[in-house]
Every structure is written in structure tokens, then in C-alpha cells.
């Protein structure tokens, strides 16, 4: 019988924990999980809550999630130590479309690096890789990749001072041709990347974040217009984004109430 991992939780113990920086930690689990970059799992801390996280490291014997300490749950997750018991189910969602032998740009903003890390590892050496963050402390995996990375920070504490879109624009304007652009980070950043891509007719894929319950397209918590983020997404391409009126505008709170994105991202889960 094949392992069914998207039904009841598989209970795993944290095998290794890496403090990436004051704000980030990566939890490793020794388990063979079928997975495609961009997919996510639901992570249950018994007695606490359950939230979606992308897989940030993946091999035949191991996978990891990288968490940014923000609210109640993520702070608890970051505080877990080796041996802690966690339930996971998934992977869910569609994942990124990967095209061999094409020229790609990957644009990560803050913790948006997490889903892109395993993607970058599947793309060619000539991929352009741009990584922005608030400051040096928010740069994830500084030494992880074979590929060269361009850094930028809001405060200039590491790399270029400015936005990821500035760097992408420079690349495009310098004559570099991209077949695909992948982006993950704050929705406002992804919207800026998408706009830039539209302007230059480059197909783009971004990974969205919405409040989730089931993770498999039934409960409706995560809907964004007519799209079901957990099932149709979390990765959406340019075609989908063009029709997605709520992209970078609206999201549903836990109650189902539709609010402006700014309100959504200032909301704290109790």
C-alpha cells in the first residue's frame, strides 16, 4: 500500500532545527514525502493550531519547513526543539510549472524564499536569482545555493538598497531575455513583479497566501474571487492573474469576511 499522506496527519518528530536568523527557523523531518516545488503541507502542533507551510528543503529521506516568527502559531513553531511532535498532511496544491532548458528569473521576498528554494534547485545554472528582504536579518539561506544570487534590502544592510523589482528591471533592460519569472513574497511585491512581466510580455508564476482550513478545495476559506488558492493554487500564472480581480486587493478573514489586503495582513489569528 502506498503511503497516504494527504488524509489524517502523519505524526513526525523534529529531527533537526536550524536557527536561520532571529526571525527564522527551519525544522527538518526525516520522512520521504512525494512533493513538487510550490506545494505546501498543513502543519499541526497538537494543542495549538494548524497552518499551511511550504516545503523548503526536500530529498528522498528528508524535508523541512522554514518559518518566520510572526504571530502565536509561528512563534510556537519556531520555538520547537528536536524531538517535538508535529502532525503534517499534504502535500496540497499545484506547485510551479517547470520548463527545462528555459531561461528563468526567480524573485524572492523575505520568507517567500521558502517555496522558491526547492524550485531554484531544479532550474538551470543560468537562472537569475533575486532575493530581497527588510534587512540583513531577514535574508534566508545565505550560503545554500550553487547559483549566484543578487541581494537587496529595504535598509541597505545587505546587498543593493531597494526593491527586487528594481533589480529585475535592470536585468530586463540590460537585454536579458526571460522565458519565465517566478515570484514569492509579500503580495504587493508579487503584484509589482507581475506588472513588470506583463509590460515585457514575460509569463509569470506567483505563489499566493490565504487563510486555509481544509487545504484540499472543499471548505472555501481560501477562495480568492473564483479561484481556490489551496487547490487551483497556491501558484497562479499570468493567465489566471489577469482574471483575478482580488489579486493584491482583497482576502477573506477567518470569518469569511472579505477585506482589503492591508487589513488582512495586519490581522492576528487568535
Amino acid at each position, binding site marked *: 500500500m502506498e503511503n*497516504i499522506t*494527504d*488524509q*489524517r*496527519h502523519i*505524526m513526525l518528530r523534529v529531527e533537526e532545527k536550524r536557527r536561520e536568523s532571529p526571525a527564522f527557523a527551519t525544522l527538518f523531518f526525516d520522512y520521504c514525502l512525494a512533493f513538487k516545488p510550490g506545494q505546501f503541507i*498543513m502543519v*499541526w502542533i*497538537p*494543542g495549538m*493550531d*494548524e*497552518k499551511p507551510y511550504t516545503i523548503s528543503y526536500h530529498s528522498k529521506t528528508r524535508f523541512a519547513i522554514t518559518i518566520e516568527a510572526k504571530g502565536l502559531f509561528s512563534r510556537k513553531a519556531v520555538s520547537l526543539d528536536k524531538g517535538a*511532535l508535529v*502532525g503534517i*498532511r499534504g502535500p496540497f496544491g499545484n506547485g510551479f510549472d517547470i520548463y527545462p532548458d528555459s531561461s528563468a528569473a526567480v524573485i524572492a521576498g523575505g520568507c517567500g524564499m521558502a517555496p522558491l528554494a526547492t524550485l531554484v534547485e531544479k532550474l538551470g545554472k543560468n537562472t537569475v536569482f533575486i532575493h530581497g528582504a527588510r534587512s540583513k536579518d531577514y535574508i534566508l539561506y545565505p550560503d545554500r545555493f550553487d547559483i549566484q544570487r543578487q541581494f537587496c534590502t529595504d535598509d541597505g544592510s545587505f546587498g543593493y538598497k531597494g526593491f527586487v523589482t528594481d533589480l529585475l528591471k535592470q536585468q530586463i533592460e540590460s537585454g536579458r531575455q526571460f522565458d519565465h519569472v517566478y515570484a514569492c513574497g509579500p503580495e504587493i511585491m508579487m503584484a509589482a513583479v507581475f506588472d513588470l512581466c506583463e509590460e515585457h510580455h514575460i509569463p509569470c508564476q506567483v505563489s499566493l497566501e490565504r487563510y486555509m*482550513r*481544509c*487545504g*484540499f*478545495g*472543499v*471548505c*472555501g*476559506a481560501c*477562495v480568492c*474571487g*473564483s*479561484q*481556490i488558492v489551496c*487547490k487551483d493554487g497556491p501558484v497562479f500564472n499570468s493567465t489566471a492573474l489577469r482574471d483575478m480581480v482580488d489579486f493584491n486587493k482583497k482576502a*477573506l*478573514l*477567518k*470569518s*469569511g*469576511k*472579505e477585506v482589503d489586503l492591508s487589513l488582512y495582513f495586519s490581522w492576528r489569528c*487568535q
Partner: protein
Amino acid sequence: MTIEFLGKPLKNPIVLASGILGNSRDILERVYMNGCALVTMKSIGPEPRDGHKNPTVIDLGHGMINAVGLPSPGYLNMENEWLALENRSFPLIASIYGGSVHEYQMVAEYVSSKQPDFIEINISCPNSEKHGMIFGVNPVSTHEVVSAVKKVVQVPLIAKLTPQAPDIGEIARACEDAGADAICAINTAGPGMVIDIESRQPVLAFKKGGLSGPMIKPIAVRCVFDIFQAVKLPIIGLGGITTGKDAIEIIMAGARLVGIGSAVRYRGLDVFQKVADEIHQWLVEHNTCLDDIRGAAHRSIG
């Protein structure tokens, strides 16, 4: 396969169950475009409510367990949604719940003014401390809440029942007496509980949850059978319906329309069209029609 339901013509007998997707006009429309004839909104309550913490919905393979906990923006906080629904191109059921007869009435009256095609009152939800189910297991309180709501609504009223009632036929009769125009059965069964033995904790944050999907189909079929025997009202039959044959089965038990919820997980969003097509094909192959098979299991042979 067009069919009439309380005076409204529908393109087929398939209904989207409440609480499945149903969170925005756009997704309701997408469900309609995917072959569903009548869509139900997620149940609307008297107050803004976040629902329970996660885990709230878990697939068990042959069905699922959920305790979403009736999240709702609250009936007064949905103006955008109502506006968007005003010029809809599809028939709509608005589902409502309350914590008291008065709350049910308040929500129902307001929602009725927004002119959904039907109002469904959820007197059957097991996933809240105080909402809903208590009404649905007792014929006296069922009668009270249904007749109170009936007085204040301008559109046909559907009562959604729980299989947990010791005698669901009796509850259906109470609804009929109280003026309900149709019955919807069933809401989730159980409730059940799943315990993770490693952490020694119930998996759902609310501990208990309602069961849905294939494993509850025999319960749903029995309930519809009992209700069909008890009342003359048209029935929306649901609970584990996943294929055209499942739909035929619950129609033979007495359902006029067939609801689909959990099957979205098992067969995708186009499950509505698939089931509608499968029903159609079965009817053609058997040279029969919906009117002929409805309630057929009540006619004994041999």
C-alpha cells in the same frame, strides 16, 4: 433533465451543499458553470464569528470529519456579497443559522430582503456549542423555530435536518406543520471524533466533528426514505453522494434534488457536471425519467 423545484425551473437536479466553497459570488458562479443547478451559500449567522481553530477539516479517505464551527461575517457585514449577488445568473439558496428563535428570525428576515431564491435554515449543525442542532433533534423546538422564520421570509423556506434526530420523520412533520416548503437532508452525521494516539489529542481543535462523504451515504439514504414516508414536501437529498448512481439511489429513496458537498474533494470541482451526466446516462440506458424513479424504493415488489 430540467426539473422544477418550488416553482423554479432548474437545469438539472444537482445542488451545491452549504459550507462547501460557497464563500463568494465568483466561486458560486464557477460551481454553477461546472454543472450545478442550484448553489447554497455558506450558512450565515447573527454575529461575526471566526469559527474554530484548525484542524477543522480532515479527510478520512472514505469520508471526512469537520468542525469548522460556523464561521460567518455576520448577516450585517455582507453588503459587498449581496451587491455582487444582485445580478447573478444562477439560482441561489441562502443558508442561515442562529442561537435562538429570535436570532434565526432576525437573520432570516434580513436575508430574505436580499432576495435569494430560497432560504435554508440550518437547524442541524453539530459543530458549535450553542447553534443549530439542538433544534433539529426535538420536534417541538423545530416547530417553533421553523414557524417563527416562516412568518418573516418572502421566499420559499427549506429546513435542513440532522440525521442525529431519533425519529427524523417526526422532525420533518414538525417542519411541514410549521410551514416549511421543502426539506434538505442530511447535514453531517455523528458527530464523530478522531484521536491522534501519538499526541493523545483529538485531531480536531473542537474535538468532535460532523461526518460527511461516502461513509454517511447509507444514513442519508435512510433519512430521505423516512422523510419521504412522513411528509409530502420535496426533499433535497444529500450525504455522501459522489456518483450518478449514488444520486439515483437517493432519488429512489425519495429525493427531488440531490446535494453534493464532500465529493468535490473526491472527484474535483466538475463533479457536478459529472454526476449530472451520469444520472442522465443512467436514465437513458434504463429508458426512464426522474419522475418515474423518485421514491421508487417505496414500492415493494415480489
